Protein backbone atom coordinates (compact mmCIF):
# COMPACT_ATOMS: atom_id res chain seq x y z
CA UNK A 1 0.00 0.00 0.00
CA UNK A 2 2.87 2.36 0.87
CA UNK A 3 6.36 1.68 -0.41
CA UNK A 4 9.35 3.85 0.43
CA UNK A 5 12.37 2.96 -1.66
CA UNK A 6 15.61 4.63 -0.64
CA UNK A 7 13.89 7.91 0.16
CA UNK A 8 15.91 10.90 1.35
CA UNK A 9 14.74 14.35 2.34
CA UNK A 10 16.74 17.27 3.69
CA UNK A 11 15.45 20.62 4.94
CA UNK A 12 18.35 22.85 4.00
CA UNK A 13 21.03 21.47 6.30
CA UNK A 14 18.62 19.51 8.54
CA UNK A 15 18.16 15.84 7.89
CA UNK A 16 14.53 14.81 7.57
CA UNK A 17 14.92 11.29 6.24
CA UNK A 18 17.94 9.36 4.92
CA UNK A 19 17.73 6.44 2.49
CA UNK A 20 14.56 5.08 4.06
CA UNK A 21 13.03 1.90 2.66
CA UNK A 22 9.78 0.55 4.10
CA UNK A 23 7.05 -1.60 2.64
CA UNK A 24 3.62 -1.31 4.26
CA UNK A 25 1.19 -3.88 2.89
CA UNK A 26 -2.53 -3.62 2.47
CA UNK A 27 -4.25 -4.29 5.79
CA UNK A 28 -1.12 -3.70 7.88
CA UNK A 29 -1.23 -1.92 11.22
CA UNK A 30 2.10 -0.16 11.61
CA UNK A 31 3.46 1.96 14.44
CA UNK A 32 6.05 4.56 13.50
CA UNK A 33 8.17 5.36 16.54
CA UNK A 34 11.36 7.21 17.37
CA UNK A 35 12.67 10.17 19.35
CA UNK A 36 11.58 13.73 18.73
CA UNK A 37 13.05 15.11 15.53
CA UNK A 38 13.70 11.61 14.17
CA UNK A 39 11.74 12.19 10.95
CA UNK A 40 8.33 10.66 11.65
CA UNK A 41 6.28 13.65 10.60
CA UNK A 42 8.57 14.04 7.60
CA UNK A 43 7.67 10.46 6.65
CA UNK A 44 3.97 11.30 6.75
CA UNK A 45 4.27 14.60 4.94
CA UNK A 46 6.08 12.76 2.15
CA UNK A 47 3.20 10.31 1.79
CA UNK A 48 0.73 13.20 1.56
CA UNK A 49 3.05 14.98 -0.85
CA UNK A 50 3.05 18.05 1.33
CA UNK A 51 6.79 17.95 0.70
CA UNK A 52 8.78 16.35 -2.11
CA UNK A 53 11.49 13.75 -1.63
CA UNK A 54 15.01 14.70 -2.74
CA UNK A 55 15.66 11.19 -4.02
CA UNK A 56 14.19 7.69 -3.97
CA UNK A 57 10.64 6.76 -4.83
CA UNK A 58 7.38 6.59 -2.88
CA UNK A 59 4.46 4.47 -4.02
CA UNK A 60 0.98 4.91 -2.55
CA UNK A 61 -1.84 2.53 -3.54
CA UNK A 62 0.15 1.32 -6.53
CA UNK A 63 1.00 4.78 -7.82
CA UNK A 64 4.42 6.39 -7.84
CA UNK A 65 3.76 9.76 -6.22
CA UNK A 66 7.21 11.25 -6.66
CA UNK A 67 6.27 12.54 -10.09
CA UNK A 68 2.68 13.49 -9.29
CA UNK A 69 1.56 16.85 -10.65
CA UNK A 70 -0.08 19.41 -8.43
CA UNK A 71 -3.46 18.65 -9.96
CA UNK A 72 -3.20 14.98 -8.96
CA UNK A 73 -2.51 15.65 -5.30
CA UNK A 74 -6.17 15.89 -4.22
CA UNK A 75 -6.82 12.45 -5.67
CA UNK A 76 -3.90 11.06 -3.64
CA UNK A 77 -5.18 12.67 -0.47
CA UNK A 78 -8.65 11.29 -1.01
CA UNK A 79 -7.14 7.83 -0.64
CA UNK A 80 -5.69 8.78 2.73
CA UNK A 81 -7.50 9.59 5.98
CA UNK A 82 -5.65 11.86 8.40
CA UNK A 83 -6.03 11.97 12.18
CA UNK A 84 -4.21 14.64 14.16
CA UNK A 85 -2.99 14.97 17.72
CA UNK A 86 -4.90 18.25 18.10
CA UNK A 87 -8.05 16.86 16.35
CA UNK A 88 -8.39 19.90 14.04
CA UNK A 89 -12.17 20.01 14.13
CA UNK A 90 -14.03 23.08 12.92
CA UNK A 91 -15.40 24.67 16.05
CA UNK A 92 -18.32 26.38 14.29
CA UNK A 93 -19.64 23.10 12.93
CA UNK A 94 -21.43 20.36 14.84
CA UNK A 95 -20.10 16.82 15.08
CA UNK A 96 -22.32 15.78 12.20
CA UNK A 97 -21.30 18.79 10.09
CA UNK A 98 -17.61 18.22 10.75
CA UNK A 99 -17.85 14.69 9.40
CA UNK A 100 -20.19 15.71 6.57
CA UNK A 101 -17.68 18.40 5.60
CA UNK A 102 -15.21 15.71 4.52
CA UNK A 103 -17.82 14.38 2.13
CA UNK A 104 -18.87 17.81 0.82
CA UNK A 105 -15.29 18.58 -0.02
CA UNK A 106 -15.16 15.62 -2.39
CA UNK A 107 -18.54 16.42 -3.94
CA UNK A 108 -20.64 13.71 -2.31
CA UNK A 109 -24.39 14.22 -2.59
CA UNK A 110 -26.67 15.24 0.28
CA UNK A 111 -28.28 11.84 0.16
CA UNK A 112 -24.97 10.00 0.42
CA UNK A 113 -23.98 12.24 3.33
CA UNK A 114 -27.24 11.60 5.18
CA UNK A 115 -26.75 7.87 4.86
CA UNK A 116 -23.07 7.59 5.56
CA UNK A 117 -22.37 10.04 8.39
CA UNK A 118 -24.64 8.48 11.05
CA UNK A 119 -23.19 5.10 10.22
CA UNK A 120 -19.62 6.30 10.80
CA UNK A 121 -20.56 8.16 13.97
CA UNK A 122 -22.06 4.90 15.20
CA UNK A 123 -18.84 3.08 14.37
CA UNK A 124 -16.71 5.41 16.52
CA UNK A 125 -19.34 5.45 19.25
CA UNK A 126 -20.43 9.08 19.17
CA UNK A 127 -23.78 8.87 17.38
CA UNK A 128 -25.61 10.31 20.39
CA UNK A 129 -23.60 13.56 20.22
CA UNK A 130 -24.08 14.31 16.53
CA UNK A 131 -25.55 17.75 17.19
CA UNK A 132 -22.97 18.91 19.70
CA UNK A 133 -20.17 21.35 18.97
CA UNK A 134 -16.54 20.32 19.48
CA UNK A 135 -16.08 22.53 22.57
CA UNK A 136 -18.93 20.63 24.20
CA UNK A 137 -17.02 17.35 23.92
CA UNK A 138 -14.24 15.70 25.92
CA UNK A 139 -10.86 15.26 24.25
CA UNK A 140 -11.52 11.57 23.66
CA UNK A 141 -14.87 12.34 22.07
CA UNK A 142 -13.29 14.98 19.85
CA UNK A 143 -10.75 12.46 18.65
CA UNK A 144 -13.57 10.04 17.82
CA UNK A 145 -15.01 12.74 15.61
CA UNK A 146 -11.57 13.23 14.08
CA UNK A 147 -11.42 9.53 13.25
CA UNK A 148 -14.97 9.51 11.90
CA UNK A 149 -14.06 12.38 9.58
CA UNK A 150 -10.91 10.55 8.46
CA UNK A 151 -12.70 7.34 7.53
CA UNK A 152 -15.99 8.67 6.22
CA UNK A 153 -14.79 8.62 2.61
CA UNK A 154 -13.47 5.08 3.03
CA UNK A 155 -9.79 5.80 2.47
CA UNK A 156 -7.33 3.01 1.69
CA UNK A 157 -4.96 4.17 4.42
CA UNK A 158 -5.53 5.88 7.75
CA UNK A 159 -2.59 7.91 8.99
CA UNK A 160 -2.55 9.18 12.55
CA UNK A 161 0.18 11.49 13.87
CA UNK A 162 0.18 10.95 17.65
CA UNK A 163 -3.59 10.59 17.89
CA UNK A 164 -3.42 9.78 21.60
CA UNK A 165 -0.90 12.47 22.48
CA UNK A 166 -3.52 14.66 24.19
CA UNK A 167 -5.45 11.85 25.87
CA UNK A 168 -5.29 10.08 29.22
CA UNK A 169 -4.27 6.39 29.12
CA UNK A 170 -7.78 5.00 29.43
CA UNK A 171 -9.19 7.24 26.67
CA UNK A 172 -6.12 6.46 24.58
CA UNK A 173 -6.88 2.75 24.78
CA UNK A 174 -10.48 3.41 23.70
CA UNK A 175 -9.17 5.24 20.66
CA UNK A 176 -6.79 2.35 19.97
CA UNK A 177 -9.72 -0.06 20.06
CA UNK A 178 -11.53 2.02 17.46
CA UNK A 179 -8.43 2.11 15.25
CA UNK A 180 -8.07 -1.66 15.59
CA UNK A 181 -11.71 -2.10 14.63
CA UNK A 182 -11.15 0.03 11.53
CA UNK A 183 -8.05 -1.98 10.69
CA UNK A 184 -9.92 -5.25 11.01
CA UNK A 185 -12.44 -3.94 8.50
CA UNK A 186 -9.64 -3.69 5.96
CA UNK A 187 -8.11 -0.22 6.26
CA UNK A 188 -4.33 -0.01 6.41
CA UNK A 189 -3.17 2.01 9.42
CA UNK A 190 0.01 3.96 9.99
CA UNK A 191 0.26 5.54 13.42
CA UNK A 192 3.01 7.74 14.81
CA UNK A 193 3.32 7.54 18.58
CA UNK A 194 5.59 8.05 21.54
CA UNK A 195 3.42 5.88 23.79
CA UNK A 196 5.49 2.82 24.59
CA UNK A 197 2.74 1.16 26.63
CA UNK A 198 0.28 1.38 23.73
CA UNK A 199 2.74 -0.05 21.23
CA UNK A 200 3.63 -2.89 23.55
CA UNK A 201 0.01 -3.66 24.34
CA UNK A 202 -1.14 -3.72 20.70
CA UNK A 203 1.53 -6.13 19.49
CA UNK A 204 1.72 -4.78 15.92
CA UNK A 205 4.49 -4.11 13.47
CA UNK A 206 6.81 -1.35 14.71
CA UNK A 207 9.03 0.77 12.46
CA UNK A 208 11.61 2.80 14.33
CA UNK A 209 13.23 5.95 12.92
CA UNK A 210 16.23 7.65 14.42
CA UNK A 211 18.05 10.64 12.96
CA UNK A 212 16.20 10.15 9.71
CA UNK A 213 17.15 6.47 9.32
CA UNK A 214 14.96 3.40 9.68
CA UNK A 215 16.81 1.55 12.40
CA UNK A 216 14.33 -1.18 13.24
CA UNK A 217 11.28 -2.80 11.65
CA UNK A 218 9.78 -5.63 13.66
CA UNK A 219 6.59 -7.18 14.91
CA UNK A 220 5.79 -6.80 18.57
CA UNK A 221 7.09 -4.16 20.90
CA UNK A 222 8.49 -0.66 21.08
CA UNK A 223 12.05 -2.02 21.55
CA UNK A 224 15.07 0.14 22.08
CA UNK A 225 16.79 2.56 19.92
CA UNK A 226 20.35 2.78 21.22
CA UNK A 227 23.04 0.24 20.40
CA UNK A 228 20.49 -2.37 19.54
CA UNK A 229 21.95 -5.48 17.94
CA UNK A 230 19.08 -7.06 16.09
CA UNK A 231 20.97 -10.24 15.28
CA UNK A 232 21.69 -11.22 18.85
CA UNK A 233 19.01 -13.22 20.62
CA UNK A 234 20.61 -12.37 23.95
CA UNK A 235 20.20 -8.70 23.33
CA UNK A 236 16.60 -9.19 22.37
CA UNK A 237 16.01 -11.10 25.60
CA UNK A 238 17.66 -8.33 27.50
CA UNK A 239 15.64 -5.49 25.95
CA UNK A 240 12.34 -6.95 24.98
CA UNK A 241 10.07 -8.21 27.65
Amino acid sequence: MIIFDNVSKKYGGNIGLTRASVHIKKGDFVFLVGPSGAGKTTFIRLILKEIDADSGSITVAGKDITRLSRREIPELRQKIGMVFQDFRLLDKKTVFENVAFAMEVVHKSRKQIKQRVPHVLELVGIADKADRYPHELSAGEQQRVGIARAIVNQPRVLIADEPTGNLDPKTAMEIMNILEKINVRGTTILMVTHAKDIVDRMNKRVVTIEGGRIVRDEQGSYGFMDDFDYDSDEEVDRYVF
Partner: protein
Amino acid sequence: MFSRAGYALKQTFSQIWRNKSMYLVSVLAITAMMLILGIFFISFVNVDMFTTTLNKDYNVIQVYLDENNDGAEDKAVEEAILALDGVDKAIYESKADALVKLKQRWGDNAYLLDNLQDNPLPNSYLVYVEDKDAADYVAEAVTEIPGVDDVTYYRDTIEKLSKITRFVETASMIAMIFLIVVSVIIVANTIKLTVHNRAQEIGIMKYLGATDWFVRAPFILGGIVIGLVSSLISTGAIYVIYSKIIGLIQADVIRMLSVELVPADYLVFNLLIMCAALGVGIGTCGSIISIRRFLAK
Protein backbone atom coordinates in the same frame (compact mmCIF):
# COMPACT_ATOMS: atom_id res chain seq x y z
CA MET B 1 -22.21 19.49 -11.37
CA PHE B 2 -25.22 21.58 -10.44
CA SER B 3 -24.90 20.79 -6.78
CA ARG B 4 -21.21 21.71 -6.90
CA ALA B 5 -22.02 25.15 -8.24
CA GLY B 6 -24.75 25.42 -5.64
CA TYR B 7 -22.34 24.51 -2.88
CA ALA B 8 -19.81 27.09 -4.04
CA LEU B 9 -22.51 29.77 -4.22
CA LYS B 10 -23.77 28.93 -0.76
CA GLN B 11 -20.25 29.21 0.58
CA THR B 12 -19.78 32.49 -1.25
CA PHE B 13 -22.83 34.15 0.22
CA SER B 14 -22.31 32.90 3.75
CA GLN B 15 -18.77 34.21 3.47
CA ILE B 16 -19.93 37.61 2.26
CA TRP B 17 -22.48 37.72 5.07
CA ARG B 18 -19.85 36.95 7.70
CA ASN B 19 -17.56 39.71 6.40
CA LYS B 20 -20.29 42.06 5.26
CA SER B 21 -18.81 45.34 6.48
CA MET B 22 -15.51 44.66 4.71
CA TYR B 23 -17.30 43.69 1.52
CA LEU B 24 -19.45 46.80 1.73
CA VAL B 25 -16.44 49.06 2.09
CA SER B 26 -14.78 47.56 -0.93
CA VAL B 27 -17.97 47.77 -2.98
CA LEU B 28 -18.16 51.48 -2.12
CA ALA B 29 -14.52 52.05 -2.97
CA ILE B 30 -14.78 50.27 -6.29
CA THR B 31 -18.06 51.99 -7.08
CA ALA B 32 -16.28 55.32 -6.60
CA MET B 33 -13.50 54.14 -8.93
CA MET B 34 -16.01 53.14 -11.55
CA LEU B 35 -17.84 56.45 -11.25
CA ILE B 36 -14.64 58.30 -12.07
CA LEU B 37 -14.02 55.88 -14.89
CA GLY B 38 -17.55 56.42 -16.16
CA ILE B 39 -17.10 60.20 -16.23
CA PHE B 40 -13.95 59.78 -18.28
CA PHE B 41 -15.73 57.37 -20.56
CA ILE B 42 -18.65 59.73 -21.16
CA SER B 43 -16.39 62.70 -21.87
CA PHE B 44 -14.30 60.61 -24.19
CA VAL B 45 -17.20 59.25 -26.19
CA ASN B 46 -18.79 62.68 -26.58
CA VAL B 47 -15.65 64.49 -27.62
CA ASP B 48 -14.79 61.68 -29.96
CA MET B 49 -18.23 61.76 -31.50
CA PHE B 50 -18.06 65.52 -31.94
CA THR B 51 -14.70 65.25 -33.68
CA THR B 52 -15.97 62.54 -35.99
CA THR B 53 -18.97 64.65 -36.92
CA LEU B 54 -16.79 67.62 -37.71
CA ASN B 55 -14.37 65.44 -39.60
CA LYS B 56 -17.10 64.71 -42.08
CA ASP B 57 -16.97 68.42 -42.96
CA TYR B 58 -13.23 68.34 -43.30
CA ASN B 59 -13.41 68.42 -47.03
CA VAL B 60 -15.91 71.24 -47.19
CA ILE B 61 -14.91 74.86 -47.49
CA GLN B 62 -17.60 77.45 -47.32
CA VAL B 63 -16.88 80.39 -49.56
CA TYR B 64 -19.05 83.45 -48.85
CA LEU B 65 -19.83 85.70 -51.75
CA ASP B 66 -19.73 89.46 -51.80
CA GLU B 67 -23.18 90.95 -51.19
CA ASN B 68 -22.89 93.20 -54.19
CA ASN B 69 -22.26 90.43 -56.69
CA ASP B 70 -24.77 89.87 -59.43
CA GLY B 71 -25.58 86.43 -60.84
CA ALA B 72 -22.90 86.59 -63.50
CA GLU B 73 -20.23 87.54 -60.99
CA ASP B 74 -21.25 84.63 -58.77
CA LYS B 75 -21.00 82.35 -61.76
CA ALA B 76 -17.50 83.71 -62.47
CA VAL B 77 -16.47 82.91 -58.91
CA GLU B 78 -17.78 79.38 -59.34
CA GLU B 79 -15.73 78.91 -62.49
CA ALA B 80 -12.63 80.29 -60.82
CA ILE B 81 -13.15 77.87 -57.93
CA LEU B 82 -13.65 74.88 -60.17
CA ALA B 83 -10.47 75.80 -61.99
CA LEU B 84 -8.42 75.30 -58.81
CA ASP B 85 -6.51 72.05 -58.35
CA GLY B 86 -8.14 69.50 -56.05
CA VAL B 87 -11.68 70.88 -56.19
CA ASP B 88 -14.38 68.25 -56.68
CA LYS B 89 -17.48 70.36 -56.92
CA ALA B 90 -18.97 73.62 -55.77
CA ILE B 91 -22.59 73.80 -54.65
CA TYR B 92 -24.43 77.06 -54.45
CA GLU B 93 -26.20 77.89 -51.21
CA SER B 94 -28.44 80.94 -51.41
CA LYS B 95 -28.95 83.17 -48.38
CA ALA B 96 -32.52 81.83 -48.15
CA ASP B 97 -31.23 78.20 -48.02
CA ALA B 98 -28.73 79.24 -45.37
CA LEU B 99 -31.45 80.72 -43.20
CA VAL B 100 -33.55 77.55 -43.43
CA LYS B 101 -30.51 75.51 -42.37
CA LEU B 102 -29.82 77.81 -39.47
CA LYS B 103 -33.42 77.58 -38.32
CA GLN B 104 -33.20 73.80 -38.35
CA ARG B 105 -30.05 73.94 -36.35
CA TRP B 106 -31.49 76.27 -33.75
CA GLY B 107 -34.54 74.08 -33.29
CA ASP B 108 -36.67 75.39 -30.43
CA ASN B 109 -34.84 78.71 -30.48
CA ALA B 110 -35.55 79.26 -34.14
CA TYR B 111 -38.36 81.73 -33.39
CA LEU B 112 -35.63 84.25 -32.56
CA LEU B 113 -34.82 84.35 -36.25
CA ASP B 114 -38.40 85.15 -37.25
CA ASN B 115 -38.07 88.79 -36.21
CA LEU B 116 -35.23 89.54 -38.58
CA GLN B 117 -36.00 92.32 -41.03
CA ASP B 118 -33.45 91.24 -43.55
CA ASN B 119 -31.74 87.97 -43.97
CA PRO B 120 -28.20 88.83 -42.82
CA LEU B 121 -26.68 85.65 -44.22
CA PRO B 122 -24.64 85.87 -47.41
CA ASN B 123 -24.86 83.65 -50.47
CA SER B 124 -22.12 81.06 -50.57
CA TYR B 125 -20.56 78.10 -52.32
CA LEU B 126 -19.92 74.85 -50.50
CA VAL B 127 -16.69 73.76 -52.08
CA TYR B 128 -15.83 70.07 -51.84
CA VAL B 129 -12.16 69.23 -52.09
CA GLU B 130 -10.38 65.92 -52.60
CA ASP B 131 -8.12 65.74 -49.59
CA LYS B 132 -6.53 67.58 -46.71
CA ASP B 133 -3.69 69.13 -48.71
CA ALA B 134 -6.08 70.37 -51.35
CA ALA B 135 -8.23 71.86 -48.59
CA ASP B 136 -5.34 73.97 -47.31
CA TYR B 137 -4.46 75.13 -50.77
CA VAL B 138 -8.02 75.86 -51.90
CA ALA B 139 -8.89 77.73 -48.69
CA GLU B 140 -5.93 79.97 -49.34
CA ALA B 141 -6.48 80.39 -53.05
CA VAL B 142 -10.20 81.27 -53.02
CA THR B 143 -9.53 84.38 -50.97
CA GLU B 144 -7.74 85.81 -54.05
CA ILE B 145 -10.78 85.39 -56.29
CA PRO B 146 -12.62 88.68 -56.89
CA GLY B 147 -16.15 88.65 -55.51
CA VAL B 148 -15.29 86.38 -52.57
CA ASP B 149 -15.97 87.93 -49.21
CA ASP B 150 -14.87 85.35 -46.66
CA VAL B 151 -14.01 81.71 -46.15
CA THR B 152 -14.73 79.27 -43.31
CA TYR B 153 -13.00 76.06 -43.05
CA TYR B 154 -13.09 73.68 -40.02
CA ARG B 155 -9.53 72.63 -40.10
CA ASP B 156 -8.33 74.61 -37.06
CA THR B 157 -11.28 73.57 -34.97
CA ILE B 158 -10.78 69.96 -35.92
CA GLU B 159 -7.13 70.01 -35.03
CA LYS B 160 -7.86 71.52 -31.67
CA LEU B 161 -10.52 68.95 -31.06
CA SER B 162 -8.27 66.10 -32.08
CA LYS B 163 -5.80 67.31 -29.50
CA ILE B 164 -8.51 67.33 -26.85
CA THR B 165 -9.63 63.87 -27.90
CA ARG B 166 -6.12 62.52 -27.63
CA PHE B 167 -5.69 64.17 -24.24
CA VAL B 168 -8.95 62.76 -22.92
CA GLU B 169 -8.00 59.38 -24.36
CA THR B 170 -4.59 59.35 -22.69
CA ALA B 171 -5.97 60.66 -19.41
CA SER B 172 -8.69 57.98 -19.45
CA MET B 173 -6.11 55.29 -20.06
CA ILE B 174 -3.87 56.42 -17.23
CA ALA B 175 -6.81 56.86 -14.90
CA MET B 176 -8.15 53.46 -15.88
CA ILE B 177 -4.86 51.65 -15.21
CA PHE B 178 -4.44 53.44 -11.91
CA LEU B 179 -8.02 52.72 -10.85
CA ILE B 180 -7.79 49.09 -11.89
CA VAL B 181 -4.65 48.58 -9.85
CA VAL B 182 -6.19 50.27 -6.82
CA SER B 183 -9.37 48.22 -7.22
CA VAL B 184 -7.47 44.95 -7.46
CA ILE B 185 -5.61 45.85 -4.27
CA ILE B 186 -8.87 46.67 -2.50
CA VAL B 187 -10.50 43.39 -3.55
CA ALA B 188 -7.35 41.41 -2.73
CA ASN B 189 -7.33 42.81 0.79
CA THR B 190 -10.99 42.11 1.38
CA ILE B 191 -10.67 38.55 0.15
CA LYS B 192 -7.46 38.08 2.09
CA LEU B 193 -9.35 38.86 5.26
CA THR B 194 -11.98 36.29 4.37
CA VAL B 195 -9.31 33.75 3.59
CA HIS B 196 -7.66 34.43 6.95
CA ASN B 197 -10.92 33.79 8.73
CA ARG B 198 -11.09 30.43 7.03
CA ALA B 199 -7.41 29.49 7.15
CA GLN B 200 -7.97 26.52 9.45
CA GLU B 201 -10.83 25.26 7.32
CA ILE B 202 -8.77 25.57 4.16
CA GLY B 203 -5.95 23.58 5.73
CA ILE B 204 -8.35 20.80 6.64
CA MET B 205 -9.97 20.87 3.23
CA LYS B 206 -6.62 20.24 1.64
CA TYR B 207 -5.96 17.24 3.87
CA LEU B 208 -9.37 15.94 2.88
CA GLY B 209 -8.41 16.07 -0.77
CA ALA B 210 -10.26 19.19 -1.89
CA THR B 211 -9.14 20.44 -5.28
CA ASP B 212 -7.63 23.89 -5.62
CA TRP B 213 -10.69 25.05 -7.53
CA PHE B 214 -13.02 23.82 -4.85
CA VAL B 215 -11.10 25.85 -2.28
CA ARG B 216 -10.75 28.87 -4.55
CA ALA B 217 -14.27 29.07 -5.98
CA PRO B 218 -16.07 30.85 -3.11
CA PHE B 219 -13.32 33.46 -2.84
CA ILE B 220 -13.22 34.16 -6.54
CA LEU B 221 -17.00 34.32 -6.66
CA GLY B 222 -16.87 36.72 -3.70
CA GLY B 223 -14.50 38.94 -5.65
CA ILE B 224 -16.74 38.79 -8.70
CA VAL B 225 -19.77 39.73 -6.63
CA ILE B 226 -17.91 42.83 -5.40
CA GLY B 227 -17.05 43.77 -8.98
CA LEU B 228 -20.53 43.18 -10.36
CA VAL B 229 -22.39 44.95 -7.58
CA SER B 230 -20.04 47.93 -7.91
CA SER B 231 -20.55 48.08 -11.66
CA LEU B 232 -24.33 48.01 -11.28
CA ILE B 233 -24.38 50.78 -8.70
CA SER B 234 -21.94 53.02 -10.53
CA THR B 235 -23.54 52.55 -13.94
CA GLY B 236 -26.98 53.17 -12.46
CA ALA B 237 -25.77 56.40 -10.86
CA ILE B 238 -24.15 57.55 -14.07
CA TYR B 239 -27.32 56.80 -16.02
CA VAL B 240 -29.37 59.00 -13.74
CA ILE B 241 -26.86 61.85 -13.70
CA TYR B 242 -26.11 61.75 -17.42
CA SER B 243 -29.81 61.68 -18.35
CA LYS B 244 -30.28 64.80 -16.22
CA ILE B 245 -27.35 66.50 -17.90
CA ILE B 246 -28.71 65.69 -21.33
CA GLY B 247 -32.09 67.12 -20.35
CA LEU B 248 -30.44 70.31 -19.15
CA ILE B 249 -27.92 71.11 -21.85
CA GLN B 250 -28.80 69.11 -24.96
CA ALA B 251 -30.57 72.05 -26.62
CA ASP B 252 -27.68 74.42 -26.01
CA VAL B 253 -25.13 71.93 -27.23
CA ILE B 254 -27.03 71.42 -30.44
CA ARG B 255 -27.33 75.17 -30.98
CA MET B 256 -23.73 75.97 -30.26
CA LEU B 257 -21.94 72.98 -31.65
CA SER B 258 -24.53 71.55 -34.01
CA VAL B 259 -23.97 68.06 -32.58
CA GLU B 260 -26.06 66.03 -30.16
CA LEU B 261 -24.81 64.45 -26.97
CA VAL B 262 -24.47 60.68 -27.22
CA PRO B 263 -27.79 59.17 -26.02
CA ALA B 264 -27.78 57.95 -22.41
CA ASP B 265 -29.21 54.50 -23.16
CA TYR B 266 -26.59 53.64 -25.72
CA LEU B 267 -23.73 55.02 -23.72
CA VAL B 268 -24.71 53.58 -20.36
CA PHE B 269 -25.36 50.16 -21.85
CA ASN B 270 -21.81 50.10 -23.14
CA LEU B 271 -20.53 51.47 -19.87
CA LEU B 272 -22.35 48.71 -17.99
CA ILE B 273 -20.80 46.01 -20.11
CA MET B 274 -17.40 47.59 -19.71
CA CYS B 275 -17.72 48.00 -15.93
CA ALA B 276 -19.13 44.50 -15.47
CA ALA B 277 -16.28 42.96 -17.44
CA LEU B 278 -13.87 45.10 -15.50
CA GLY B 279 -15.52 44.14 -12.22
CA VAL B 280 -15.30 40.46 -13.01
CA GLY B 281 -11.66 40.89 -13.99
CA ILE B 282 -10.82 42.92 -10.90
CA GLY B 283 -12.65 40.47 -8.63
CA THR B 284 -10.98 37.46 -10.15
CA CYS B 285 -7.47 38.91 -10.09
CA GLY B 286 -7.85 40.30 -6.59
CA SER B 287 -9.06 37.04 -5.14
CA ILE B 288 -6.56 34.86 -6.96
CA ILE B 289 -3.75 37.07 -5.68
CA SER B 290 -4.93 36.83 -2.10
CA ILE B 291 -5.52 33.09 -2.05
CA ARG B 292 -2.43 31.96 -3.96
CA ARG B 293 -0.28 31.78 -0.86
CA PHE B 294 -2.81 29.62 0.95
CA LEU B 295 -2.93 27.06 -1.79
CA ALA B 296 0.76 26.25 -1.66
CA LYS B 297 1.03 22.59 -0.69
